[in-house]
């Protein structure tokens, strides 16, 4: 990642967007560096598309500034900014052939006819559709259309590529394949890219950095591993991947209490006795006696305080692993979900109704503010 301390390519400062009384963006600031692939991730209505459209100048922000390549583009119309865009609908011109669609942006730019034809062939070859150039969009599959839209967007070598949910209209297999292909293409071109998605898997797989948004506010910005392993808020923790959430109270920093027992956890800022949610990912729950298989050398196992004897309530085979629902009186109604590898299950001869001891590693156990209305 080109985090060399140079000026960011795209600098978003204190962006607000109001639709009447509704605030779709609230004081959003963000730096994006040259060559990065950034994903805006969040549930629908979180403001991610609004942010994208503000960057493009399609829907102007109410307040705040956008700088692109050191230039203030805050109030410029789309046609005076430098970006290519792919929409969820692809917006291919239905009455123009594939090559005409791709050539659309190349016309009136001082290129000769031959140059345009060459560039179009190059682009179509790049997206692997060189043989389809005379067809109309409706004659192509969804995935092919998507690639044409991409080719059209990058035809003029824009400094910024904007992708608005580019894969959501496709079926699962094509989506996974294209994910990869877009990422490849982006690497090859080195074009700074912003992609909007509501699919966390897509974001984790593609992004250099993920921007998680909720209710018009950025919740967290970070690399996929940062976002996954050290979510800053319960929302991020919950939205990305699976997360056990168990009501608890804060102990002194580095500890959480469940009813009568206390466990060690990652350091936190809550005062003693503050109601919190204790959270741990299912795959971080370690079956006793299996630590060596799971933990790396820098992980410390706190066997005394963080070990629990639990009842295996239910086991579900999910192909590459087992998902187990574990009960313990400390958790009350909540069950602890744990993902065990097939090997571990076999080694420990786990079965529904049996008991076992699990380990909640302290550097995986997190404390979050407990929302007021907990069901």
């Amino acid at each position: 990642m080109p985090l060399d301390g140079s000026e960011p390519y795209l600098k978003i400062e204190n962006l607000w967007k109001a639709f009447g009384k509704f605030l779709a963006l609230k004081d959003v600031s963000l730096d994006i560096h040259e060559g990065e692939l950034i994903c805006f991730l969040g549930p629908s209505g979180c403001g991610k598309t609004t942010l994208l459209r503000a960057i493009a100048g399609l829907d102007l922000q109410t307040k705040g500034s956008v700088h692109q390549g050191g230039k203030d583009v805050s109030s410029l119309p789309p046609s005076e900014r430098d970006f290519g865009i792919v929409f969820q609908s692809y917006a291919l011109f239905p009455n123009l052939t594939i090559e005409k669609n791709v050539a659309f942006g190349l016309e009136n730019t001082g290129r000769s006819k031959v140059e345009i034809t060459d560039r179009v062939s190059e682009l179509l070859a790049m997206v692997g559709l060189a043989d389809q150039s005379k067809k109309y969009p409706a004659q192509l599959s969804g995935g092919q259309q998507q690639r044409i839209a991409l080719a059209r967007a990058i035809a003029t070598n824009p400094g910024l590529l904007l992708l608005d949910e580019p894969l959501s209209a496709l079926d699962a297999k094509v989506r996974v394949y294209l994910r990869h292909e877009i990422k490849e293409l982006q690497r090859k071109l080195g074009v700074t890219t912003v992609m909007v998605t509501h699919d966390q898997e897509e974001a984790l797989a593609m992004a250099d950095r993920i921007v998680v948004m909720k209710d018009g506010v950025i919740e967290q910005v970070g690399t996929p591993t940062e976002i996954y392993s050290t979510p800053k808020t319960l929302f991020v923790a919950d939205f990305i991947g699976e997360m056990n959430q168990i009501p608890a109270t804060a102990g002194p920093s580095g500890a959480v209490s469940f009813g009568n027992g206390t466990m060690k956890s990652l350091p936190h800022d809550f005062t003693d006795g503050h109601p919190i949610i204790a959270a741990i990912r299912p795959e971080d729950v370690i079956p006793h006696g299996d630590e060596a298989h799971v933990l790396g050398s820098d992980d410390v196992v706190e066997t005394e305080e963080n070990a629990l004897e639990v009842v295996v309530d239910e086991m579900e085979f999910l192909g590459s692993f087992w998902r187990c629902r574990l009960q313990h009186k400390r958790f009350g109604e909540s069950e602890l979900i744990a993902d065990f590898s097939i090997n571990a299950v076999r080694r420990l001869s786990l079965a529904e109704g049996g008991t076992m001891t699990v380990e909640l590693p302290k550097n995986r156990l997190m404390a979050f503010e407990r929302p007021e209305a907990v069901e």
Partner: protein
Amino acid sequence: MTDATQHTLPAGPSIKGKLSRDDIIMRGSMVVIGLYLLITMVFPLYAMLSKSFSTFQFDLSAYEVQVSDEAGATFSNPIRLNDLNEQLKVLEDSDMIAGSDGRLGVTQFFPDFSFRSPVKYRIRNTTDEGRFLVGSTLTDSTEWVELDSNTFRRVQLRPVKSTGFGNFRSYFATPALSNSIKNSVLIATISTIVTVTLAFWFAFALSRSCMRFKGLFRLIAMAPILVPSLLPGIALVYLFGNQGMLKELLFGASIYGPIGIVIGSVFFTFPHAFLIISTALAISDGRLYEAATSLRATPWRTFWTVTIPGARYGLVSAAFVVFNLVITDFGLPKVIGGQFNVLAVDIYKQVIGQQNFEMGAVVSVVLVLPAILAFAIDRFVQSKQVALLSARSVPYQPKPNKKADWILFSYASLIGIFIIGMLAVCQFAALVKFWPYDLSFSLNNYQFDRMDGGGWGAYYNSIKLGLLTAIVGTAIIFFGAYLVEKSNGFKTGRAIFQMFAMLPMAIPGMVLGLAYIFFFNNPANPLHAIYGTMAILVVCTVTHFYTVSHLTATTALQQMDREFESVSASLKQPTLKLFGRVTVPVCLPSILDISIYLFVNAMTTVSAVVFLYSPTTSLASIAVLNMDDAGDIAPAAAMGMMIFYTNAGARIFHLIASRGILSRTQAWRNR
């Protein structure tokens, strides 16, 4: 971490976007088309409204008189006529209201007046505004004029211009005029009930039965749209007039009057009602019928609980459309209305017959009110219907039912015979030499050049008008709709434009035409030059039929991907290039629909242009009116049928042309 305090928008001005060149071009164009609508509709209507408040009144205080003794030598002191009137109570205030050509004799203020007496009179204007006539010579100076009594009786006061509700007061005080409101509403109501009922069953037969020849019936039902509304009136004269072929069917009642207007109105409004209702029936959900069948509901019960509620918005909408068409129609009551006065004809009579423009304006204002009301209700109901359309439903598939199919087929055939019959009668009458005395066939009635109304030139003018309206109108209307739909921001401007675009539908043609006289036939108006030319006819026709075309264009544009403009902007291509390369080709079917709609209506319209044509720009539809007016009914029928054939030809041409164009330009539609 989120923090509640930052969740309020900070004070200070919002970002103002810099406009791109495209934005400026599009807003500029929208302003231009907006101005077009302002000049061709809003300003004329305003001119008409102010005309309706321009009154003429006798101002008795503007005149002084002196009377001499028997010798004719010594005169009495001057006395103003209003003081004289105070003393004698000859005239009331209401007698002071006049038209522009009002005259008031003065001898009534002198009870002893005799034209043989040797008494002499002097009269003068007290102000520069005062005007009176001696015989027909105008005097507008303040000098005394001395007259002998025989001449004095020829003195007539002229009214002065002022502003007020006087015209409206005298309108409602004159039963001959205000009765028309009642008549118009009555006729429109009856016609609406009859047409909607007939059209409903016709649409029902076509959508809910398995009868044969549905396509043919659909074609026949649409035929009346191709002729001016005058034509059914002419057909009725031949069918039920005093020499009518089926005169006996009326049992002595006269076709000239409400009966004729109703039958004719049913004819020319039928396609409109049929279209709306069959759309409403087509979107009814087939699953509801399956449910009704599975619940063993009787057909009767199913009809009332499924069919009618499903079509109710269509029925209401059709009713208001028909009501509006009938109440604003001018041609039909003009031909067949006899002594039955209706509002639209009153406007014509006031203006053309009596040159009473002020009263024409008053009647126009009166006519606009019910028309706008019906229009508003229709728009409201239509918005509901759209909501119903977007719901997912399964189209109903009728099952054969021999008896019901036969009944419905017979019914549809009756309607078909009615429509075809009316047209056939006109064609027959046009070919007969001299009805009813010489029934041999001849083409004499096609020698239009020997009749009033403009001759064959009028027919060619109509085609010219139709083509110009179709080309110019389609261009303006489609581009205007594009700007409204696809411009960025500029919300207020777009809302105002949208309102302007909807307004023409609520304005009856007669009113628009009259408003154009007031606005364009004003020498002070820089656009005065287009008055009396083909240009004003094109402008008027485009404006008159703006709304439906605008809605067609809007619907087509809304089906286009919203993001085309964004993509084009991101590719730094001018929006107009996108418009030409993508929008127009993709919307071509709708664009062709708009042009044929404008062409057909330009061929048939009478009401909007009747005040605006000049001898060199007479139109076929106007010729039908004028020939009928002059009693040349057979040539009028002949010309009316020429309009029918032209429109039918244009429709067929449109069909073939659009197939051809579509197969070439819309290849992308085929997968």
